[in-house]
């Protein structure tokens, strides 16, 4: 067998760094704009309606702002950051350039064109349909086409990763795929399968009726297609953060990946189980038999399992790192971690809040318990712990080493960055806790509550906490964006030999000792497709054969 030889890290060319950097520019720009809308909503809930003052610049509408916030933060910031980051994990992990760099450039620019095409109708008020765009609430065709181009562009970038992997595999027959590349490839494979749902929904229903080619949609069928993509979407966001937690954070903390086998198993289980769980977003829907909902509930518990594996492996890797730094005790070791590194602190804080996000997620998945929280403020409370903290705060942490690495410039005011990560944590604890409580009290999500006639007095204190949390988060995101812009714009460069390196963690055990079945695609892909057919096939067949495109579109 081949033993692990110490290999030189891959030095990216200037062109590759610029290409990844372009992804980050779009991502951070989207986050900056989208995040300005979030606090406007939070303030509105406690009676401070700032939209009335923003009318002169065309931002007069709560739901326009909510659509922009959801699309820019949850879809654009994530997708651009992820495609950029996975470009890095692919080429640096495999230690070779992209097989067809032009292909990836085509994918990237297609995403940019799609973003512009979707952003125009959103800001013009022709697409205030929120980021779930449930039919028959109808948006401009340009919104749907723009989103399609973003998704197809991400597919093309994914094809570029797969061609690169195939080329690498030809030259490296008996070698385990380096972990960070392996994780990125699985993320992209899952994404390609999962987005078929949304692609079918847009191409067969939403684009034709928004162009006036058909007279209506089947809204329930549309929901089933949407959530086929909608749940794995959250794993598309989360898995790149996991790549960092497993494959990079241990190195930053001074340790190693605790278990290569378990890390790989977790990623394969995410491929297998991320998709056939969508009905748990449709527990309160009509038109879907409760038996199928129960099956998806059970499978959703299944997809919690690899996250529990992750919890163990990541904590064990960190404890190992801390023990090498002299940390002792059952919990005392936590203090020995390098908390003063903003990249580390961001990811540790993200991980801590993700535990609560995971517990809430189990609640959401729990079939009938879900009746208490479905469509309430609990849900955005939950996903602000997951996508807006576990993912977003981790991506912020990653960018604290990535942007200095790409630009060759030192991080602007690391202390400032450290404060930023803590403000995000504190703001989110206040915001998210208040949202969860409001949900339990029955407050609906995505509702302009400041104008709602039915708000009881007992909600008021929590609505105020939502606003306070939102204000802290606004300060934090501004600090983040300023730090990134000042880092990239400054003249100062790091000295030769002091460049910020890409942190890649070794594993405690030689990855060559990880069994081959954990580095073999075919059985896992077959299993994934099979499970989707079993979990979705009969109900989807029933909904398609009984489809009635009788629901005409209505404006918001």
């Amino acid at each position, binding site marked *: 067998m081949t*033993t*692990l030889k110490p290999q030189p890290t891959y030095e990216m060319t200037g062109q590759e760094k610029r290409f990844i950097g372009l992804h980050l520019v779009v991502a951070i720009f989207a986050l900056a704009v989208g995040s300005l809308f979030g606090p406007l909503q939070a303030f509105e809930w406690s009676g401070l309606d700032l939209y009335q003052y923003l009318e002169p610049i065309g931002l007069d*509408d709560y*739901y326009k702002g*909510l659509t922009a916030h959801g699309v820019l933060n949850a879809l654009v910031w994530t997708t651009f950051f992820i495609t950029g980051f996975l470009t890095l994990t692919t080429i640096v992990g495999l230690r070779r350039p992209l097989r067809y760099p032009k292909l990836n450039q085509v994918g990237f620019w297609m995403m940019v064109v799609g973003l512009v095409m979707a952003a125009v109708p959103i800001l013009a008020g022709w697409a*205030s349909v*929120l980021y779930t765009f449930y039919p*028959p609430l109808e948006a401009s065709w340009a919104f749907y086409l723009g989103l399609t181009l973003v998704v197809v562009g991400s597919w093309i970038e994914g094809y570029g990763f797969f061609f690169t992997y195939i080329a690498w595999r030809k030259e490296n027959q008996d070698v385990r795929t380096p972990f960070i590349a392996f994780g990125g490839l699985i993320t992209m494979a899952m994404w390609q399968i999962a987005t078929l749902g949304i692609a079918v929904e847009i191409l067969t229903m939403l684009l034709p009726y928004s162009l006036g080619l058909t007279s209506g949609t089947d*809204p*329930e069928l549309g929901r089933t297609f949407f959530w086929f993509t909608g749940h794995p979407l959250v794993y598309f966001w989360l898995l790149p953060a996991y790549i960092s937690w497993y494959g990079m954070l241990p190195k930053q903390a001074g340790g190693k990946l605790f*278990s290569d*086998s378990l890390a790989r198993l977790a990623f394969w289980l995410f491929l297998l189980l991320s998709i056939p769980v969508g009905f748990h977003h*449709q527990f*309160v*829907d*009509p*038109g*879907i*038999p*409760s038996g199928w*909902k129960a099956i998806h*509930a059970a499978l959703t*518990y*299944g997809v*919690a*399992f690899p996250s*529990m*594996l992750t919890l*163990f492996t990541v904590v*064990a890797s960190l404890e190992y790192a801390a023990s090498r730094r002299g940390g002792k005790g059952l919990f005392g070791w936590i203090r020995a971690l390098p908390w003063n590194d903003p990249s580390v602190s961001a990811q540790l804080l993200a991980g801590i809040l993700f535990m609560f996000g995971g517990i809430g997620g189990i609640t959401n998945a*729990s*079939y*009938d*318990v879900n*009746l*208490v929280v*479905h*469509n*309430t403020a609990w849900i955005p409370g939950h996903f602000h712990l997951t996508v807006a903290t576990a993912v977003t705060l981790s991506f912020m942490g990653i960018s604290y080493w990535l942007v200095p690495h790409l630009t060759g410039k030192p991080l602007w005011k690391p202390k400032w960055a450290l404060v930023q990560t803590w403000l995000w944590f504190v703001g989110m604890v206040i915001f998210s806790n208040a949202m969860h409580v409001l949900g339990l009290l*029955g407050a*609906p*999500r*995505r*509702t*302009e509550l400041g104008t*709602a*006639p*039915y708000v009881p007095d007992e909600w008021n204190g929590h609505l105020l906490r939502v606003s306070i949390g939102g204000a802290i988060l606004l300060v934090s995101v501004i600090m983040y964006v300023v730090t990134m812009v000042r880092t990239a714009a400054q003249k100062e460069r790091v000295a030769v030999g002091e460049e910020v390196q890409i942190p890649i963690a070794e594993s*405690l*055990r*030689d990855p060559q*000792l*990880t*069994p081959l079945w954990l580095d073999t695609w075919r059985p896992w892909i077959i299993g994934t497709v099979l499970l989707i057919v079993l979990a979705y096939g009969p109900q989807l067949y029933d909904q398609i054969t009984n489809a*009635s495109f*009788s*629901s*005409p579109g*209505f404006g*918001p």
Partner: protein
Amino acid sequence: MSDQQVLGEEQPSFHADDYEKKWIGVSIVLLVAFAVTVAVAGFALGFQVPGDESRVDPRTVADSGPFSQPGLRDLGGGEYDAYILSQQYLFTPREIRVPAGSTVNFYITSIDVQHGFKLQDTNINMQIVPGQVSKLTATFDDPGEYPYICHEYCGIAHAAMFGSLIVEAGGGS
């Protein structure tokens, strides 16, 4: 656990630390326990979610059949059917009154976009989808006012969309 890389003649194998194996066991037991609890609550104790009720044509549903006259139907024996029509931005009827101790079957559909129906302080929580009828049943023992609010975004005045179920004390109707 050891700090050393394992090299030499060792063959590839699935490797898990002892604590790791225990954690895997705990994880599986926990998740199975959750699943069993929820299944017992749902299928043995009757805490059910909406299922596949019936389909309608949203363009004509308000013209004939039960949804042409939304409101309460007394089935006798303290049981009622409540037919509720949703549209931007109101429920019809706006108010429903039943005596304490009543069991109410809610049948709800929409003639335009998707809506939501959440009856506060109960387990009645439904997505309202044009073309579909949503149904859930609840029994009301405690007198009082239970607001029902639209909890799915349905357009610009979504926040104004609500109604009230009033459960009256003393068995009067």
